[in-house]
């Protein structure tokens, strides 16, 4: 009896529901399109890379200087550096979303953007998980949630596949140096640390609490790393090699395993971390060879 009643009610109200359903299905895609931002300003090179990786590069109307990947991004109007962007230039691009990176863009600038009611999305800084989280957040904000999930799944799969290659290989001790002077390295909370671990290396600065602490040269010598990787601009290669050459008691120096890598791969928490891991694996697991890298 009761069952029947429910059934009747359902059937009676069906046309109404159907209408509603149809309306929702018809209107929702448009709603989505209205809601999704169409003019995005990116305030960091890594943010630009994430937006492009999601296939939303067309929506980017402004980027910071040094946003050079993918190459198309270089053509976009510039709004100044990530440290000191020009608010005027940002406003002039009529963005309906500005995407920034915490701990990279100065809080002063971000607060001001918020005061001016400019729609602002602030991505986080942190480990690899934060990068995935940032991709998903960006995807959702751009109406590309599905693409973001696919991208993250793909990247994680690629990372996993890469780590399979290094299973069982000996684990070299690594000193990862960021920039030339001072000796800045990566602590356990930085995604660089995770990359080193995934690449089958041991980060000698793993016990550091800060993400990017200044490390003492004495500690490097004591820890005696097998490999030293310096992430910096290529112009400084000679100077860096000359610097480390003075410390032949370090195994990495003795065996000619001081490598300078392009910092673009290593200072941008973007989908290109996969490339970064590839580079690390190559450098950590090859026989000590005399020659250039």
């Amino acid at each position: 009896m009761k069952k029947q009643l429910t059934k009747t009610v359902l059937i009676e109200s069906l046309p109404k529901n159907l209408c509603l359903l149809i309306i929702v299905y018809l209107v929702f895609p448009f709603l989505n399109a209205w809601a999704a931002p169409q003019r995005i300003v990116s305030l960091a090179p890594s943010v630009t890379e994430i937006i492009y990786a999601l296939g939303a590069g067309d929506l980017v109307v402004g980027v910071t200087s040094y946003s050079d990947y993918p190459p198309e991004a270089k053509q976009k109007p510039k709004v100044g550096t990530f440290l000191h962007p020009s608010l005027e230039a940002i406003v002039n691009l009529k963005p309906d979303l500005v995407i920034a990176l915490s701990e990279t863009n100065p809080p002063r600038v971000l607060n001001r953007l918020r005061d001016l009611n400019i729609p602002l999305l602030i991505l986080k800084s942190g480990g690899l998980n934060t990068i995935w989280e940032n991709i998903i957040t960006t995807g959702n904000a751009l109406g590309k949630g599905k693409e973001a999930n696919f991208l993250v799944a793909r990247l994680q799969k690629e990372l996993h596949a890469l780590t399979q290659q290094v299973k069982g290989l000996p684990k070299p001790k690594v000193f990862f140096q960021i920039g030339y002077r001072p000796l800045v390295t990566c602590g356990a909370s930085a995604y660089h640390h995770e990359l080193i671990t995934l690449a089958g290396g041991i980060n000698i600065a793993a016990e550091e609490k800060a993400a990017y602490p200044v490390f003492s040269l004495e500690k490097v010598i004591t820890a005696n790393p097998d490999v030293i990787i310096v992430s910096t601009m290529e112009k400084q290669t000679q100077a860096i090699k000359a610097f480390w050459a003075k410390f032949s008691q370090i195994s990495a120096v003795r065996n000619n395993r001081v490598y300078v890598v392009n910092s673009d791969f290593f200072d941008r928490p973007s989908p290109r971390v996969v490339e970064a891991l590839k580079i690390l694996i190559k450098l950590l697991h090859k026989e000590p060879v005399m020659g250039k890298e």
Partner: protein
Amino acid sequence: MFSKPRLVYIGLFFTFALVFIFALFSGAVPLHWPLSAEEKFILFRLRFPRVLLGGMVGGALALSGAVLQILFINPLAEPYILGISGGAALGGILALLLGINLSGLGVTLGAFGGALFALAILFFIIGIKGELDTYFFLLAGVILNALFTAIILFISALVKASALHTIYFWLLGDLSTAGFTEVGWMSFFVLICGLVCLYHARTLDAMAQGEVVAATLGISVGRAKRQLLLVMSLLVGATVAVSGMIGFVGLVVPHGIRLLAGNQHRTTLPLCFCTGAGFLILSDAIARKVFAPLEMPVGVITALLGAPFFLYLLRTYVKNR
């Protein structure tokens, strides 16, 4: 027909108006008539408060330079060179890092405390009376500045990387994020401090002749001096809190004004304020225009303009000894 100061007044007023308008129409984005919605936004909500704050800060710095030069009986005194700005920056950063808010005034009060502390140290070193040799005096200031900068950098080494941006702002001086809130507070402090300075204009005139002369004129210097020092700390503190450390404005401007308009402080102080305002507004217009859209901290521009002038003054001073 016109007296010399009045001519200077009129001339400076027109120059100031020109600078103000020029600054409003100079920036990373060129404005086209009629203004679009974005251009209006840029003009009224970004540039206008920025120019106003620049004027306020520049005026305050020039005013404090003029007064400090009398208080210390030294033509080269200036808040930046004497390390008072450095003390204010340290106080502001400490207040910021310790999370002292006090409804938005925490940083300003911290900076005020820091400036007061710096002034106290300066007086402790040179003695409250002393007409000290310029070189010792400058040396004391420079070293004090170095000390405060070192402490700021020491703190920056302890805190995480994101706080570095904040320290960068404090050390270089920057107006790029100026809003109406800052303009409001700054005009409040400028008004109070400016009025106190004007109130003491006569005393300053007398003090410029030396404290002995002032005493013979029957003017008690002590109280005025204490009040002016307090006001200077407040002015420098408020300035540094909204704009970071901007140097040399307080040096260049009072010298120019004294050459043009003489030594009557009732006339020179307002002139100093206006000229300082114009100078910083112009410097900031340069800062946001030359490498647009790259922003240059305005402190860099004033130092580039002011430091050579300082050296020139020092040279004349040495020659005339």
